[in-house]
């Protein structure tokens, strides 16, 4: 169905405008993210960080301009794009009546990913023993987030879209998260991290893009001279 692609750019936005009703979430964004890159999106609240990620996941349609995600038009290959993209949003998208293991299994199977990594992924995020059989309704906010992360780890998507991933996590979980991101990008995935606490991600990111008022208003290279594998070694 979708062209089999090994694109060089993970995300390419050209003069992208996205609207919520009549409100411009993005007012002309230009952004190129290469495969394997880790890009930090900075900006004040309401600058359009979340909207940018949602556009990349194909959740918000592009009103004008051109968007390509993993070389595909997100409007045309909606399902295909969503199977290859993993998003960590504010909500964990869990079903309250299912337990942790069932939630993870459903999400991983839905994306068409291999279910063999589920056990390891849950273990990695400390979801073991009784916790696996706990209903999602009884989880704390931090635990929900860990479940959502376990889904991503098990799915191993090509493009990771992380919206304020550190929010609600304790210090050890934060460093685990950074480790996971670093591993994923080392394995060839791309990560786009939106955060208003850039210092938490700065150690991982290749560069940082600042959004203000729905437009890209600044860009800086964080670790200019370090090529990704070397940096990963450093972080890990």
């Amino acid at each position: 169905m979708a062209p089999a692609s090994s694109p060089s750019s993970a995300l390419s936005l050209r003069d992208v405008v996205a609207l919520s009703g009549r409100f411009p979430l993005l007012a002309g964004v230009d952004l190129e993210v290469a495969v394997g890159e880790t890009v930090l999106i900075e900006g004040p609240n309401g600058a359009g960080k979340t909207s940018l990620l949602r556009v990349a996941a194909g959740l918000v349609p592009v009103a004008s301009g051109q968007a390509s995600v993993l070389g595909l038009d997100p409007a045309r290959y909606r399902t295909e794009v969503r199977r290859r993209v993993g998003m960590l949003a504010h909500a964990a998208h869990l079903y309250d009546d299912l337990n942790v293991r069932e939630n993870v299994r459903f999400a991983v199977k839905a994306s068409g990913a291999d279910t063999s990594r589920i056990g390891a992924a849950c273990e990695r995020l400390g979801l073991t023993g009784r916790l696996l059989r706990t209903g999602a309704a009884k989880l704390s906010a931090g635990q929900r987030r860990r479940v959502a992360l376990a889904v991503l780890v098990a799915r191993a998507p090509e493009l990771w879209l992380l919206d304020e991933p550190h929010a609600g996590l304790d210090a050890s979980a934060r460093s685990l998260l950074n480790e996971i991101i670093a591993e994923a990008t080392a394995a060839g995935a791309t990560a786009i991290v939106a955060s208003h606490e850039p210092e938490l991600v700065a150690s991982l990111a290749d560069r940082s893009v600042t959004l203000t008022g729905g437009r890209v208003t600044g860009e800086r290279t964080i670790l200019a001279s370090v090529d990704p594998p070397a940096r990963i070694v450093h972080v890990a």
Partner: protein
Amino acid sequence: MWRDTLLMAGKDLRIEARSRVALSQVAPFGIVALVLFAFALGPDRAPMVKGAPGLFWVAMLFSSVLAIQRSVSVESTDGARDGLRLSGLDPAGQFLGKTLSVAAQLLVLELVLGVGVVLLYGASIQTFWLIAVSCLLGTIGLAAAGTLYGALSAGLRIKETLLPFLLLPVVAPVLLAGTRMWQAALSGGTPANGTPWFHLLIAFDAVYLALGVVVYGPIQETA
């Protein structure tokens, strides 16, 4: 698509198995409706037996609204609506899966109400296969149209009041067909009594299943 259908239906049925909303709330509601109809029609058996087919289907229609609302609300907690869109499940598969799970729950409900009609109203079933066919086809139609309207109303804040109003007139043909087939079945009618209604139900099912497969994705993206 079929894989996604089963996955989705399995997920919804598992949720039902855990929460038992249909079993502990929707089915008792149907029974209550049957009892209330009996009160309304008086203690004489004759009007109850005469009305049994219609009362069965009216109770089914109202219960199915509840089942659909439950099926919608499963997807509206914790951003599950976005989750479903993000999941990578084929929209047609999502639609068919939801329809399948609602249909499965409604079939159980029909069994309960059917027994209720026989026991409470004293209706005696002569042609069993007419009942089976009408229930099966009617259920598919109710579930498909309901899931479609459920998706349409999912983003609305006042869906609880709007959904029955939108859905019930649409499924009126199911009521008519189901009632007539039941009447034939109770009076030991010949297959000929059921044939046009059989065709009508098939047409209804086909139309709403096809619409859902095509349109469910676009509806979901309308937020």
